[in-house]
């Protein structure tokens, strides 16, 4: 696992998100009211909507395209929808956000 520094938590709007371009594609970083940060692939399991543009509340992000609700801890769409999105580990140290990326399988 490689840990990458992304910058200050303040660069991610509270109750919203940003995304990072990585060799593994776009990853959304979402920040909730408790300043917890979640990282998931920036593609909604429904039709690929950019989750970084969604509303964040608690452990949920609401997709901006058709309002699917995704549980950010499990990376799963909430009922009645089905689907999942890959989650990535995040660490916060001194207000700095670190993203954990697995080495990509060759």
């Amino acid at each position, binding site marked *: 696992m490689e840990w*990458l520094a*992304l*910058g200050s938590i303040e*660069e*991610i*709007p*509270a*109750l*919203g998100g*940003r*995304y*990072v*371009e*990585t*060799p593994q594609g*776009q990853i959304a*970083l979402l920040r*909730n*009211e408790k300043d917890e940060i979640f990282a998931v692939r920036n593609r909604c399991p429904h*039709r*690929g*909507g*950019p989750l970084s*543009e*969604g*509303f*964040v*509340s*608690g452990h*949920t992000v*609401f997709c*901006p*395209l*058709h*309002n*699917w*609700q995704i549980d950010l801890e499990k990376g799963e769409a*909430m*009922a*009645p*929808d089905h689907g999942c999105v890959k989650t990535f580990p995040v660490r916060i140290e001194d207000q700095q956000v670190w993203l954990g*990326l697995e080495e990509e399988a060759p």
Partner: protein
Amino acid sequence: MNPVSVQPRKARLVVVGNGMAGIRAVEELLKMAPDLYEITIFGDEPHPNYNRILLTPVLAGEMALEETILNPLDWYAEHGITLHTGSRVAMIDRVKRRVVTEDGRVAPYDRLLLATGAAAAIAPIPGNDLPGVVSYRDMADVAALIRDSGLGGEAVVIGGGLLGLEVAHGLRARGMGVTVVHRRAWPLDKQLDARGGALLQRAMEARGVRFLLGKESAAVLGDTRVRGLRFTDGGEIPTDVLVMTIGIKPRIELAQAAGLQCETGILVNDTLQTYDPRIYAVGECVQHRGQTYGLVAPLFEQAKVAANHLAEYGRMRYQGSVTSTKLKVTGIELFSAGDFMGGDHCEEVTLLDGGQGVYKKVILRENRVVGGLLYGDTGIGPWLFQLMRDGTDVSAFRDTLVFGETHLGDSGHAGESQAARLADGAEICGCNGVSKGSIVKAIREQGLFTLEEVRKCTKASASCGSCTGLVEQLLASTLGGFYDSTPKKKALCGCTDLSHQEVRDAILEEKLLSVRQAFAYLDWRHPGGCATCRPAVNYYIRTAWPAEGVDDAQSRFINERAHANIQRDGTYSVVPRIYGGVTSPAELKRIAEVAERHHVPMVKFTGGQRLDLLGVKKEDLPRIWAELDMPSGHAYGKALRTVKSCVGTEFCRFGVQDSTRLAIELERGLERMWAPHKVKLAASGCPRNCAESTIKDFGVIGVDSGWELYVGGNGGMKVRAADLLCKVKTHEEVLEVAKAFLQMYREDAQYLERTAPWVERVGLDSIKAVVVNDLESRRQLAARMDFALSQEKDPWAEAISGRLDIHAAPLRRIPA
């Protein structure tokens, strides 16, 4: 001679069971033959007949016990009925034709009516008789539950059917922690498919009810009182109260002991007679053509037929019933009927709006409705149920089936209430089988004014109450302006119990200046809110406090946050403002160059006479905006969109007014206006109306003497022709009325309510009163609009200058 008047002895009718079906049969009988029988009724509950259906509202604290009484003791006395409450019939002596009670009373009969109902089924597991194990059937159960819940603690409900969910809701409302244990994969599996079940589960969970699904109970734990429940998989859950709602068992012991044929229930024929023709039976205790029923609608039908025969009319036959169910958990709307799962040889029509929590599914077989389920919005339930029972061929309108009858071949009109458009024969109250025709007739002929009166007189909405809304609509449409309904409160979303209006009032009164402050002050259930409340509350704050209120970008829909319209592939479209649709060669050239330079995939004329650059990446937005050097067209917002114009007097040979200039003035005057929903205007230069002013939120048509102003038009999903608001002479007046009308809309309409439904809701007259007739209030409204507009800046210019961050670029680019 003195003739001895021989009073012939009245025939004696004995009724066993003082419940809903038995008493309904007696009521029907009294209507047809008030003097035929001397009636004696035995009931083993200590109460007069009450509405069992309403036990849930009582448990939930929404209703008092006394309100459920259907027939007070006076009623029995008035009709000369002998009532024995708290008295159980122990035996029927068919030879001597008499019944004997446990406490030794004897009552002879000529006709006997059995209406013993059903008892709650109890799971055959060890410990099921421990104190604290309760069933959910009668007032005594509810009293016990209310007492137990007073201590707080945990409750477990076995069985996630209708009764299980209702009791869970009730106990939760009384402050207990509640877990529903259900053996199937989703609750209410007899009424819902997996998807509907999931929606329901989520809604119940949002109310704090927990679920354990796919669990089989093995034993009740505890020595002197229940303390937990063990499952067949070995798992256990602690609890203080255990409610069993796993089904009901018809009470047939009495009939069986008397030698009457019984299977699951007491067997009856189409005249509701048992194998002994002197003995009738109705209600949950009977089995008719292999079927038993656990809902009041079919039982009331049975009661009617049995009464008809007891009254010696002998005409009616009971042929079985098709039933539909509803759930009585406040705030959850659910309707289910027939085959709702579908399968082979069936087709499904579905509609799912996860955001609004609406799910509708209709099952068709050979173009006929055979079942359906509605979740979240059950308005079309009665109509659908009617189609199902009538076996109507729906091929002509199956594509609009899920929207209900109002959509039938008339995408052209909106507005009337749903009930007003139902056919006279349509059934409104399913429990009591009351049609629209008979309700309207009663309202007219008997001069009814209130819901209570309609209930008394027709029984409509008197049982489970879920058709109350439809009955109110009928009152409103039949009585017109006389009907005064105190509007029922609907919560803004699942994060609060407050209505839109209550939230708005609080924002004004308490001067709440940000979404976060509002959520905290108003005790929002989720501190982060949801996709429904965040944009609404942000809008209410900005409208109430245009200067001080914080505009929270994260509480705006993505389009309004990015100031461009997001597309299906995550790119955006850019619509610059072109006032009145009038451009110039220089402007067109600049747009063309920008589009070319950035390889914009498509340039398109929009339906609103503007130019759209489609398929732009978010990262490129600020540069494109800078190069265009034009203001935002707000084509993405709940905001002023376009003011469409026609050619007008400048060039058109028919034009009588300068509509192009007025359109530009209107668009400049209202630019950057946020609103509850999008707002579209148009100005036409003569009554030929080429700018389609009559389907706009605010439309203007030039006539010789000035301008006609129209409001509340809509050309979208439901076309509505605008209403004529007034006629004015000058451009200045047009602008002032437009501002006043739109400011009133901004301050009054609910978020996401367009002008068309809003005008219908508040009524044109109330708008005229403040916008047309009262010049001072018109001026004030327009002034408030001007003030609000003066606080808004052009977002694109803000973004270009760095004062507004739309986060166009990614946070980081991590190289490989």
